[in-house]
């Protein structure tokens, strides 16, 4: 359904020209996304996880065309993205759900105007009565009442607003949805509602999802495949079950290790040290090497490419240690084992 090839996006964060000349420095580029390739089959969910600044949200915006790529390409159902987006009939097939339910709805519009905007923009229905009926049906589909269409966004709670956001995205009958942290601004009990709703909709409508999140536990619940991002690159891409039971990249393992233990096994966690480096001046070689327990000279000098991991079928890892077998091979994640 969707494929990216060597996708990259740099942002110019240089200071204004005059200051730059005076300080004698060159242009500064923030490499938000630097060579990301993945594919999402129809009806499946690929999740991208990573910490803030890893470029996962930029990928989401590249995929729906809010940003143009600096390098590489996005292919939507066999077509180049720019081509697909210039055609309304193709554009209609992709939609996006955003993180902040307080900013994603125009506060001055009524809910029914918000939800019907894509219908009107794509000219899917023209009759007022038909539009009204469709909005009511969409509201019911996301668990709200058709009467809610009369209200303004501020009359709803965060979870309800996210439902409105989903209804708007569904109104153009899309096949592919990009979900940028759709639950991270919500409370945990509401998060479960929204995740269940999204799973139901995927089943009923055969939707394909690109799911962006920093929460590994949420990602485990919704994904078929998971890509782990670090400093603008994919460091591991694996089927969800495999990733959570046998994570291979040292960074993936560190992320798992960092999750507080709710089962209270009393297991002592060893948090990974250091911080995420700036994407303006990423470290040489493997970007994770300053924090990696397995780093050696090769890791400092040479950037690892994503390649099939030894010993774990279908997993791709960008790590010299895994390639050379220095990581001790596939190991079961202790947290995953606890559940059996």
């Amino acid at each position, binding site marked *: 359904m969707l494929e990216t090839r060597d996708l990259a996006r740099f942002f110019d964060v240089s200071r204004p020209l005059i200051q730059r000349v005076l300080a004698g420095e060159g242009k500064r580029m923030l490499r938000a996304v630097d060579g990301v390739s993945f594919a999402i089959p129809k009806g499946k969910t690929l999740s991208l996880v990573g910490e803030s600044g890893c470029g996962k949200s930029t990928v989401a*915006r590249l995929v*729906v*065309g*809010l940003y143009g790529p600096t390098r590489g390409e996005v292919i939507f159902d066999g077509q180049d993205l720019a081509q697909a*987006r210039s055609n*309304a009939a193709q*554009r209609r097939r*992709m*939609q*996006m759900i*955003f*993180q*902040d339910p307080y*900013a*994603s*709805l*125009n*506060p*001055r519009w009524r809910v029914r105007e918000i939800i019907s*905007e*894509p219908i009107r*923009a*794509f000219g899917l229905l023209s009759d007022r009565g038909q539009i009204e009926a469709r909005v009511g049906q969409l509201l019911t589909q996301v668990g709200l009442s058709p009467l809610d269409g009369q209200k303004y966004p501020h009359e709803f709670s965060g979870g309800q607003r996210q439902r409105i*956001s989903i209804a*708007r995205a569904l109104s*153009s009958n899309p096949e592919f949805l990009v979900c940028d942290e759709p639950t991270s601004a919500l409370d945990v009990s509401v998060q479960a509602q929204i995740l269940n709703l999204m799973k139901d909709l995927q089943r009923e409508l055969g939707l394909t999802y690109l799911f962006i999140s920093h929460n590994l536990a949420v990602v485990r619940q919704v994904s078929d495949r998971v890509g782990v991002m670090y400093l603008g690159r994919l460091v591991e891409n694996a089927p969800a079950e495999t990733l959570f039971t046998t994570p291979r990249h040292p960074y993936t393992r560190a992320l798992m290790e960092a999750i507080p233990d709710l089962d209270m096994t009393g297991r002592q966690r060893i948090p990974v040290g250091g911080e995420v480096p700036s994407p303006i001046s990423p470290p040489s070689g493997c970007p994770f090497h300053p924090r990696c327990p397995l780093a050696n000279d090769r890791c400092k000098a040479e950037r690892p490419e994503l390649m099939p991991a030894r010993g774990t079928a279908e997993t791709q890892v960008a790590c010299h240690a895994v390639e050379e077998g220095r990581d001790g091979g596939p190991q079961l994640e202790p947290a995953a084992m606890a559940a059996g």
Partner: protein
Amino acid sequence: MNAVARFFDSDLWWSFTRNPITVISAIVAAICIGGAVLAPWIAPHNPFDLASLQLLDAFKPPAWSPEGDPNYLLGTDDQGRDVLSAIMYGARVSLLVGFLAVVMSVVLGVSAGLAAGYLGGTVDAVLMRIADIKLTFPTILIALLIDGVTRAALPRDVHDQIALYVVIFAIGFSNWPSFARTVRGSTMVERNKEYVQAARVIGLGRGRIMVTHVLPNVLGPVLVIATLQLGFAILAEATLSFLGVGVPPTQPSLGTLIRIGNDFLFSGEWWITIFPGIALIVLVLSVNLLGDWLRDALNPKLR
């Protein structure tokens, strides 16, 4: 709930009723504006009806002084014109100029700010540099310049006919940057909000997004500045008229009245200039106080 009921239930109305100074300014402003707008119907005399002017009644002091005439509450000027009526007619001109000048600044400034903030890049740089350059010239200077050019370029009778519009243009043109800057700032915030991105994902055009999504959400501060600028525009017009380059003497504004009266100040006929002056102060002050309140009431941080 209909719109009227919603307004009286809103936080804005509530904050209004809680604020005695604001209520008083609103009443005062309403009296001033009402008196000005309705002048032809409620003014005791028509100062422009030459037939009704009695030269014998010239230089009458206010009604409460010993030589006062109860017919002329605030006295009369050198030609026997009723000062109160002249003020009401003058305020009409002042308000007209102020209001139209502000409308012009709003249209110019909001368009420029919206375009600069939403489109960014070169459009932004060019528009904002123009605004910066504009800001380095004082309003009065620009108005004098525009007035001078039109005066030199046009025959006298033509100039007199359009003098009112020249003043409106001069003041309106000099005030747009403050609207442009505010709208640009708010637009840049709104542009990055997710509801605008959602509209972009659908593929709506930039113009449509600017007008339907961004514009309604940046108008709050515009209303505040417009109210404050109304007071400023009235003052600017009064200054120009006082300097003799404003509205033509056939349509005297408050500023013109003050200038005319100024000549008699030292010969003892103080009322001819003082009363228009007080009217100007009261009008501008009440409008500005309303603007201040509006700014506070619409600012979520101060609520």
